């Protein structure tokens, strides 16, 4: 007898139906944004090579409100990308320092502390103090 299965069809907007799917999609989008921002920084170097006036014009364009708003959104996505990966590290590769693996929250906390420390050091190196 022929089987009349109904094939599975993914619904549009599936990632909006579950907050964890949305968090995942934003994490992935954050990865794309990281790559695009890297290209922007490379472009900044190219503008610098073109000469001071070109470089200053590019910097002026980066300071316009639409670009600043866009930067804010991109920064939020990059932050979420970093934080969500810190949350996953302890689950993706359990850290076995003791008989039982460290809880993911402890691994998350350690990573955040390290992250803030490194970020603080970078800010100190660039600006000579916070």
């Amino acid at each position, binding site marked *: 007898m022929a*089987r*009349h*299965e*109904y*094939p*599975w069809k*993914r619904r549009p907007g*599936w*990632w909006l*139906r*579950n907050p*964890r*799917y949305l968090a*995942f999609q934003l994490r*992935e989008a954050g990865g794309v944004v990281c790559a695009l921002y890297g290209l922007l920084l490379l472009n900044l170097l190219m503008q610098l090579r073109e000469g001071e006036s070109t470089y200053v014009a590019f910097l002026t364009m980066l300071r316009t409100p639409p670009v600043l708003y866009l930067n804010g959104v991109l920064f939020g996505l990059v932050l979420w990308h970093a934080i969500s990966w810190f949350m*996953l590290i302890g*689950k*993706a*590769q*359990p850290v076995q320092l003791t008989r039982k693996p460290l809880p993911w929250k402890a691994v998350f906390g350690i990573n955040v502390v390290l992250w803030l420390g490194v970020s603080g050091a970078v800010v100190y190196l660039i600006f000579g103090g916070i």
Partner: protein
Amino acid sequence: MAEQDVVFRVTRYRPVPGGRPTFQDYRLPFRNDMVVLDGLNYIKDHLDPTLTFRWSCRMGICGSCGANINGQPSLTCETFIRDVSRGVVTVEPLSNFPILKDLVVDFDDFLNKLASVKPYIVRKDWGDWTKEYTQYPEDLEAYRQQSLCINCMLCYAACPVVGTSPEFIGPAASALALRYIRDSRDEGADARLARLNTKNGVWECTFVGECSVVCPKDVDPAAAIQTLKVLATMRHLRRLLMPASR
């Protein structure tokens, strides 16, 4: 115990040419100690004997009564109506599987994937029944978590990667592969890792992590897949650097 009314909005699908899934509403009484499976059985016994769904043990062991309850993959025997009802409880077949009838889906694809990772102990000396393969409690502990898998398929229904790439080997098959790889009696790790270290193997996983969230047995398939990625990489490097070890 006081009874209240609840509406079950259940997917119906008749397997006929051109058939499409639709919803059918059933109003039924429920008590606070009733689970969704009790509600489905009430419908079957008193309202509509044509409703089709799988169930067996009623205690979260057989893994056959999985369904999407209000959009969340769950075991109907472990989900209390009082916890999911806001007047209406939506019961749909598990996502990412073809529907055979009503709430019954086709698991054949999973069974093929499971078979491909050899979910049994592989021994080179298989057939020598005079031997005894002893294990210590710590040997059992190494794979106990993955051995709790009941093949309920909630993890496949929750995984958006399975929905995007049906060829992906998926969470449960990966977790069970790790269960046998970690078994001290097993000698089939190389063959399993060869299968898993492919495009449609563990590398397809982007770590959404929802499989571990919905798992009723805390098997944590997401972590199992990440562990398999490490093992597959180590196997690949070993074969690259020490070809004689093959």
